[in-house]
């Protein structure tokens, strides 16, 4: 049985908000019985874009995490709802029945991803439906995916085995795998949002030139090499994919110059600044 899955590339999202706005266009003031009732005019974010800056001026990057409903295979909202008010379809989409769910505020609080919203006026919990009402009419993608200009959002209609293979071969990840809820929203390049980096610039003091081709080695307290980099023509280096809250040693080697070693205490991503050799 083919099921709907979403893949989000964190490295391709630049926060244009087309997905957020397309979702509002589809659902504000529109009832799509029996899938959903109208989203309130303001306030809901059925796809919520979380934002992160990593590093410090001038070495930094920015990452965005579009966060729709995860359409979990083992959803907490289904368990928290009374009267089968929340159910998973055969194609994997999780729907909150807008009539049965009336008054059930517990559904909102049940979601550890925080993607369920309360509609005060209509007294019902609401969330992203993967635009199931459109998919059932023959659309191949929900509104957000259609509106995305960079290809950050992809939508796949494939069986669970097939999705598993894609996930493994392309190194996809889910957010909060430890919840164990089997989301069907996967992410590429999630490290951009969740991991940290150490960056810096190496310069040659005697000639006042950028040190190109310097070797940078990052080791942890046990002496294990965690990452390596070679500085580019601006002397810049970046070692990524690190856990937050780490203590590291950074060693910089450049032929003809004395090595430098720095201690780096990483709370979050760090630009260690300019290191003169």
């Amino acid at each position, binding site marked *: 049985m083919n099921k709907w899955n979403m893949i989000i590339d964190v490295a*391709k999202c*630049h*926060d*244009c*908000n*087309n997905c*957020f*706005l*397309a979702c*509002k*266009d*589809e659902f*504000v*003031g*529109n009832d799509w*019985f029996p899938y959903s009732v109208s989203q309130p*005019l*303001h*306030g809901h*974010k059925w796809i919520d*874009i979380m*934002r992160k*800056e990593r*590093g*410090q*001026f*001038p070495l*930094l*990057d*920015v990452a965005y995490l579009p966060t729709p409903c995860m359409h979990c295979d083992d959803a907490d909202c289904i368990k928290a709802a009374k009267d089968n008010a929340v159910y998973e379809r055969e194609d994997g989409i999780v729907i909150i029945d807008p009539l049965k769910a009336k008054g059930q505020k517990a559904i909102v609080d049940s979601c550890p991803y925080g993607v369920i919203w309360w509609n005060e006026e209509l007294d019902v919990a609401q969330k992203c439906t993967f635009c199931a*009402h459109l998919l059932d*009419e023959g659309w191949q993608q929900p*509104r957000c995916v*259609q*509106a995305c*200009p*960079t*290809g950050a959002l992809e939508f796949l209609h494939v069986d669970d085995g097939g999705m598993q293979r894609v996930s493994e071969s392309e190194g996809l990840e889910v957010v909060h795998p430890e919840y164990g809820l089997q989301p069907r929203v996967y992410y590429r390049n999630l490290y951009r949002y969740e991991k940290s980096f150490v960056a810096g610039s190496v*310069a*040659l003091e005697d000639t*006042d*030139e*950028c040190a*190109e081709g310097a070797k940078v080695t990052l080791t942890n307290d046990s002496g294990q090499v965690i990452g390596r980099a070679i500085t580019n*023509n*601006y*002397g*810049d280096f970046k070692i990524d994919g690190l856990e937050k809250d780490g203590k590291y040693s950074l060693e910089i080697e450049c032929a003809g110059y004395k090595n430098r070693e720095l201690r780096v205490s990483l709370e979050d991503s760090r630009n260690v600044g*300019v290191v003169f050799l």
Partner: protein
Amino acid sequence: MNMGTIQKLTNGTTGGPVFVYVQDGRVIRITPMEFDDLDAPSWVINARGREFSPPRKTTLSPYSLAWRSMLYSPTRLLHPLKRVDFDPAGKRNCKNRGESGYEQISWDEAAEIVSSEIKRIKREYGPAAMMATPGSHHLWGHVGYRHSAFFRFMNLTGYTSAEHNPDSWEGWHWGGMHMWGFSHRLGIPEQYDLLEDALKNTEMIVFWSSDPETTGGIYSAFESTCRRQWLKDLGVKMIFIDPYFNHTAGLLSDKWFAPRLGTDNALACSIAYVWITEDLYDKEYIKTRTVGFDKWKDYVLGKEDGVPKTPEWAEKESTVPAREIRALAREWGSKKTMLAAGGLGGWGGACRAATGGEWARLMICLQAMQGLGKPGINIWGTTQGAPHNSEFLFPGYAEGGISGDVDNSAAAYRFVYRMKFKPTRSSINSPMGQHVPRLRIPECILDGKYEWRGKGFCGQSIEAQFHQYKYPADGYPEIQMYYRYGGSFIGTMNETNRYVKAYQTDRLPFVVNQSIWFEGEAKFADIILPACTNFERWDISEFAGCLGYIPDSTCQVNHRVISLQKKCIEPLGESKSDYDIFALLAGKLGFHELYTEGGLTELDWVKRMFEASDLPNHISWEDFFEKGYYVVPMPEDYKSTPALRWFTEDRKRDTPDWGPHPESQEEFGKGLQTTSGLLEFESSSLNKFDPADEERPIIPKYIPSWEGHHTTELYARYPLQLVSPHPRFSFHTMGDAKGSWLNEVKDHRVLKEDGYYYWVIRINSKDAEKRGIKEADLVRVFNERGAVICAAQVTERLSPGTVHSYESCAEYDPLGKPGESADRAGCINILTPSRFITKNSSGMAPNSCLVELERYEGGEA
């Protein structure tokens, strides 16, 4: 399910063409267009062993997706309104404008008051006593556009136009033009076929004051996004020079430089210094394709003023480390590099500053040194230059639509001969009549006199911008009435408390405002005429189709798409289309027949425009009406003609460009528009005009900004440099405030506990810490010109000493007296200087602005 009763229609927006779904008289959905197999095939570019072809759909800007929230906005003007304390036969109480309430009146009463005032003013003063002006942009649709319906009416009734400064072009217009001509493009270059050129040849792109993911070229949504991604995938290195780590940088940057605001020109000169001293420039090209290089080279080397423009010198000015400047110069000088100076290929916030004219010139200087026009090397914004059918004629909005105004639009180029109508002209809105500069509306109203150079967009020739004008013009009256079409100036002009004050004076006895929403300047009018949106009327348009001063602007889009803008719903309330409003007034003024050509409706005009284009050769009116859009096919034998390649090879121009005019060339089609026909490091046009002008010297120079870190007394009081670029999510004011969904975009406005959506100002973490400011705190941003309340965003995307807040707040919400108290809505333009770029460059310089800010705890401020 009742999906069967939903109609799928077509329309067009400033941010792209759309499918519009309507059910029971309500718009329920607006989406981009997806093509079918019957639509023309997409082009394919072969480069570096790969094939590149765009997705078969259109893209849409964020605000276009928010259109339903604007269409049904609670601030829509639904009825004609009269200011309660305005009585045209009695007391006008002009000083109360902006504070008075409004009462509903009928259309007949409104039209009667407006037309009576127009007649009275003509009788007592003359037709030029009515000043009128639209905003820079308009809702989409070429029949309804301001160059069309508005011009036709104003030309027939007579008016003093408040001419627009060349806002998007500024430094290119007043500076760049003097190096390479392109006056028919207001100083920015052609861009034909540079996408293919870049895919095949380019190794590096330097984006200097360029954020195409935000600005979308012009009107072209995200068409070029996939094309930049192709280049990135090919390994093209991408460098960004911008005070802010902008959104294109966030997606694609390999290296970011943030020179202090106002010092880009020092950085540019020092790059040239490295190229000269390390022999990293194209000497052959300089020798054969340019004049005056030696004189400029002497300046760069310090032989003229004793100051060699070394990287060390530039580091002191700009804060960019000298060693990094050297590394950049060396990389740029040894790789085939495109310079994306500005988002369109030209433009860019750096051109709208005290240093803007010199910046544009220096951008041209740098690429001239690298062989501008050679394979892979050009000034290219990455937004234009897709393969393009330039032969297929569908007019841009700038070709005058139904006005046929050959003086103030590009109608004379080709369209006025094709269209079946009586064209209109205005003797007043001509160089021999009277006009005022939009940037000096307040001075003209309040002081009653002004002198300046340049009438609006000076595209006819390089010399046109030197021409001097005065207000009042000889024999013409002072302004007695303001017909304001739109309401954006408080959020978009500069030092905008001036505009508020200009309304609150008895020297301006009558103000009409024609707007869609009750916002901004609409709240200062005596009579408000409610206009409807493009979804409530018929029109026809093309995706990114302005043309005019941007010939073949449609080479931005991946597919040329012409849309029938179907009337989706009836106008809300009593609102009317602009055309119908003008027709109503024309009736009262006795020229209804002339205006409407014997009673034509908007749909009739749409059909005429269809017939005047090349569309009938390809599709019948009936089929076009049914389908609602047409994708223009590529010619079978398409031949790529890269921009300026003909120039480097000293051939006759082979691109389809619209200029230069033969009168300015020794041999038509050979060389540039300049007197020498070459790139002029030493400008012959400036030499003929005012060679002693130190503000705009005959060779380009680094001249410290008249409001920046060198103006030490001011800088000591206001130590933060403000950059106010084009907004990310709205299209200027289009989409902002008015209850739009855009207000909920986190990076657009911040919802605070008081229920208000505050405008964002971005500040470096160190500057924030010093002032005790945390994320989302309210702050008061201020200088001598006024104050604005914003929500702070603490960021690393700026260097310390620089703050960033977008221009174009749509609303004006003063905490106390209008024009004299802090604005809570976010009109950052209250703080920017009104001073012209130079004494003879009558352009805006908002990005030379010093401010301070502090935590805001409440009160009137």
